């Protein structure tokens, strides 16, 4: 018998959703390029905000059954990470996208790295520990705002669409539990998830974070249409 079950491919229960077929490979490539460019801009803005140099990897585009989003996004599915990566305590900065493109935006950092990232900003302002704690959360929210807005603005400009981001939610939990949120949202309507993810390395702390954009299927369609039209003009 052949392998079946690290993912279920078809589901009669799901409302019809645009299938991500090979036919659309070049369209996905277009989205990938534009998101990659947007992520570079976002990383540059982030670097300016935290006042530290920053490296960004070439973003990778992933396509997987929704249920495998956790393992695929964390790299366990490719032996890039241990299976227990889903258990690692992680600080997630989450924003949901709305407007013409809906979906999820996530910045994942090790909790210590998240602190280190904003510590230089916070230590200037906060005299005591209690204040520092709440300032750190605001600073991380701002990190989310800056990164998401630069990326989404780049996307919106390129595709002539209106994309807005929610307020950031900061959560520290197991990586698997954080990534469950987009899974729960997507699985109601679609079998396959697409995500674009990159690793960033920040400053002398060698902070390594993961930046992921997970559009909903209608959002992806809007993006593809917008980008294709622009290219056609």
């Amino acid at each position, binding site marked *: 018998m*052949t392998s079946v079950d*690290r993912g*279920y491919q078809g589901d009669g229960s799901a409302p019809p959703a645009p299938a991500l077929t090979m036919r659309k490979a070049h369209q996905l490539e277009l989205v990938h390029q534009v998101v990659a460019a947007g992520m570079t801009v976002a990383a540059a803005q982030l670097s300016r905000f935290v006042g530290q140099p920053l490296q960004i990897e070439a973003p990778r585009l992933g396509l997987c059954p929704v249920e495998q989003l956790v393992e695929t996004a964390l790299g366990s599915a490719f032996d890039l990470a241990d299976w*227990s990566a889903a258990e690692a305590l992680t600080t997630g900065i989450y924003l949901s996208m709305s407007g013409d493109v809906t979906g999820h935006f996530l910045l994942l950092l090790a909790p210590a790295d998240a602190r280190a990232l904003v510590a230089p900003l916070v230590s200037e302002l906060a005299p005591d520990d209690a204040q520092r*704690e709440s300032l750190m959360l605001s600073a991380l929210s701002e990190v989310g705002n800056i990164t998401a807005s630069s990326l989404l603005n780049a996307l919106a400009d390129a595709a002539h669409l209106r994309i807005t981001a929610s307020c950031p*939610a900061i959560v520290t939990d197991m990586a698997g539990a954080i990534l*469950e949120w987009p*899974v*729960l*949202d997507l699985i109601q309507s679609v079998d396959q998830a697409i995500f674009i993810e990159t690793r960033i390395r920040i400053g002398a702390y060698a902070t390594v974070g993961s930046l992921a954009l997970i559009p909903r299927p209608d959002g992806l369609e809007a993006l593809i249409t917008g980008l294709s039209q622009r290219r056609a003009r």
Partner: protein
Amino acid sequence: MMSTIPSPGSGLAAFGPEDDLSLQRSFEMLPDSSIGPWGGAVSSVSPSPSAAGAVISVGIGQCAVSADPAIALVSYGLGSCVGIAAWDPLRRIAGLVHILLPEPVSSAPAIPPERFASTAVPSLLHAMEVAGARISRLRLVAAGGARMLGALSASNSPVGNIGERNAAMVCAQVSAHGLCLAIQDFGGTRGRTLGLRVGSGEWWIHVAGSAATTKRQASEGHVCGTPRRDGGLKL
């Protein structure tokens, strides 16, 4: 890299051609080489269980059943998902299923059954039975069902209380089969990892951000626990 075919000596429940194919679909195993032993990268995150051995990671919507005493079945990072582990102390067969949702919407078919609490529990019990376990002997442990991403999961949103609904459906299904959860660890706002060692029936629940790991033998009896009420994690 993945196969559902139990390799010789793997100890995973073997299925004959006469077995229900749809059930086989839900079984899987990883080649031992792809599974890191405990004590590697994990140890910095959670206290590693004492005995070394291979781990089968049971992801969302998956079910695994094994009779290999050297193997541990683990669901990492359960948020609002629920992991349900079953162990037959006599035959030393263990199973673990990782559900995402309480039940399918409206009249939609529950495919795959392992995704939904309403169908995953019967599916797990059936799988255990097929592997040679007796349902009446099973010790069950369940964990998960947390309320995730606090602010975003308002209780009035359809997915906000999904953890609670998952936990309730698991409990209902377990009682419907005349069984009891020996240990249940539901609720709160933190992610959990649930693991079960096939050979010893030792299970553990690791809660995000806590240094301690709850560890117990599954054979310790049917004491129904109370839901955990823990606060959010500090950054």
